[in-house]
């Protein structure tokens, strides 16, 4: 009977994920998936109780209380700007849990375990460990505990290859001999690889890394499902593995880079273009920006990571509301890799009560720029750099960008001329139609709003 209950949980996960693909059904979808989780949890407890009431329930209950309390506090206290690091941490905990399930199975197992069981136990342990350490390094980078710049391991990326090869060797020996010590060695090497593998990846590539770790946490759960012979884990894990993989691919495509390039190139660590700041730019004050915006028929706002850093999502919404009150049409154009995780900007703007149908993705936004009077860029740089279209030598050549240079006027709010993550100059800043407004995003938006209200 419990098999059927697990099946029901799996179905609820599928229906729930399906719900998450549309804004109108997403909240219900998430709740259905949560109900599926509750069903699976209750069923396993009942199963164990029926089996034998004399079990280590104190361990289970205390674990549920401690974990539930930590999860509750983290989820309710987090700022929306910090969502990428929270999701990274949750990925890490999920991967870690699967690795620990495998570890417990290794400790409990006697001799004569079937080879396929050894293989899935190893995979659950190794993938879970990799997800755990990789996610917490990503967390550290996003939280600013570790530098967001790429940090190469000693010996360069070849070191990662050596660690991976040793890990595979230990894994093979573990499966062949079935001896515990080789499992622990493979798990330890996987932990090391998570650290040395994510350290060389720069901050702007985090959307890809988080998506990939998300996928891996699902695969680890599915492998744990094989270890304990539970279909709910296999279904749930496989779904998450697939979802994470799709996002990983989409993010790589949005940067016109292969996954291998993101993982192994140390992008963003190159020398910074020395010519930056040597050419004249047209500077704008809050009044200049206000006049341009207030008399425009159509304004497109392009938010970037700088907006998140400055916590300027409410300020941008206030300015947009003031412009709309003057009959200016305002939309937001959001690049897929704006921010530090997929869809991060959308969540921030949703927090500021921007309706989601005002948020346009790259495909829908680009045809609209030629008919746009003013583009307001807030804290974005590489994703609007026309070199991606015009300069075959540019490191970002071929990356899909928002074509803001096709609008009449562009106002760029930025703290300084310092380059974006790619370390390259942005020719857009020197164009005739571009005004540079050097200030913190929040301050600039608030001053512009004040100036609009004075008009």
């Amino acid at each position, binding site marked *: 009977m419990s098999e059927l209950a697990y099946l029901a949980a799996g179905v609820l996960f599928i229906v729930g994920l399906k719900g998450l693909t549309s804004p109108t059904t997403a909240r219900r979808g998430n709740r259905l998936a949560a109900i599926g989780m509750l069903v699976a949890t209750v069923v396993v407890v009942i199963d164990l109780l029926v089996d034998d009431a004399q079990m280590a329930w104190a361990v289970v209950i205390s674990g549920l209380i401690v974990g539930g309390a930590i999860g509750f506090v983290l989820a309710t206290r987090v700022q929306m700007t910090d969502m990428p690091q929270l999701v990274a941490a949750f990925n890490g905990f999920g991967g870690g849990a699967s690795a620990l399930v495998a570890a417990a199975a290794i400790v409990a197992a006697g001799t004569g375990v079937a080879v396929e069981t050894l293989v899935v136990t190893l995979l659950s342990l190794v993938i879970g460990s990799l997800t755990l350490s990789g996610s917490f390094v990503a967390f550290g980078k996003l939280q600013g505990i570790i530098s967001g710049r790429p940090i190469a391991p000693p010996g360069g990326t070849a070191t990662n290859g050596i660690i991976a090869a040793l890990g595979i060797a230990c894994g093979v020996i573990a499966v062949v001999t079935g001896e515990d010590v080789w499992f622990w060695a493979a798990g330890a090497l996987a932990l090391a690889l998570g650290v040395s593998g994510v350290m060389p990846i720069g901050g702007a590539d985090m959307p890809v890394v988080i998506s990939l770790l998300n996928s891996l946490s699902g695969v680890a759960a599915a492998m744990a499902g094989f270890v304990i012979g539970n279909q709910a884990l296999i279904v749930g894990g496989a779904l998450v593995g697939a979802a994470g993989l799709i996002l990983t691919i989409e993010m790589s495509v949005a940067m016109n880079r292969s996954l291998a390039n993101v993982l192994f190139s140390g992008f963003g660590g190159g020398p910074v273009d020395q010519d930056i700041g040597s050419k004249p730019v047209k500077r704008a004050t809050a009044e200049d920006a206000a006049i341009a915006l207030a008399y425009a028929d159509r304004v497109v706002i392009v938010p970037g990571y700088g907006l998140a850093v400055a916590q300027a999502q409410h300020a941008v919404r206030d300015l947009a509301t003031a412009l709309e009150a003057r009959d200016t049409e305002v939309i937001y154009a959001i690049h897929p890799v704006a921010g530090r995780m997929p869809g991060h900007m959308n969540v921030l703007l949703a927090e500021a009560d921007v309706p989601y149908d005002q948020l346009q*993705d790259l495909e829908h936004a680009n045809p609209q720029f030629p008919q746009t009077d003013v583009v307001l860029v807030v804290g974005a740089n590489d994703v609007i750099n026309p070199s991606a279209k015009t300069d075959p030598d540019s490191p970002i050549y071929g990356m899909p960008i928002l074509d803001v240079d096709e609008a009449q006027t562009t106002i760029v709010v930025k703290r300084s001329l310092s380059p974006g993550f790619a370390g390259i100059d942005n020719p857009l800043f020197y164009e005739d139609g571009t005004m540079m407004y050097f200030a913190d995003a929040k301050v600039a938006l608030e001053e512009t709003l004040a100036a609009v209200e004075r008009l």
Partner: protein
Amino acid sequence: MSDAFISGIVVFVLASFVGFEIIRRVPPTLHTPLMSGANAISGITIVGAIIAAATADGWISYTLGFLAVVFATINVVGGFLVTDRMLEMFKKLPARSK
């Protein structure tokens, strides 16, 4: 290979394809909630964690089981809650009177 293991592989492959097909066309607006919701689902490993903790004997397996339950519960509770918090904020454009 046991029959149970083979049927596990069948389920894994089919569920992967279902996942691909469902999520392929998700709008970028929902990428973050999708990821954190999916992340919460990967906390299904809580079932394995509970089994590991409940059947533990000896301090090594107690520790492993306890940590597994803690980690998985953080993932499940935190993941679903924060996703709900985010989705609560997503609102449609109200019909504006011009």
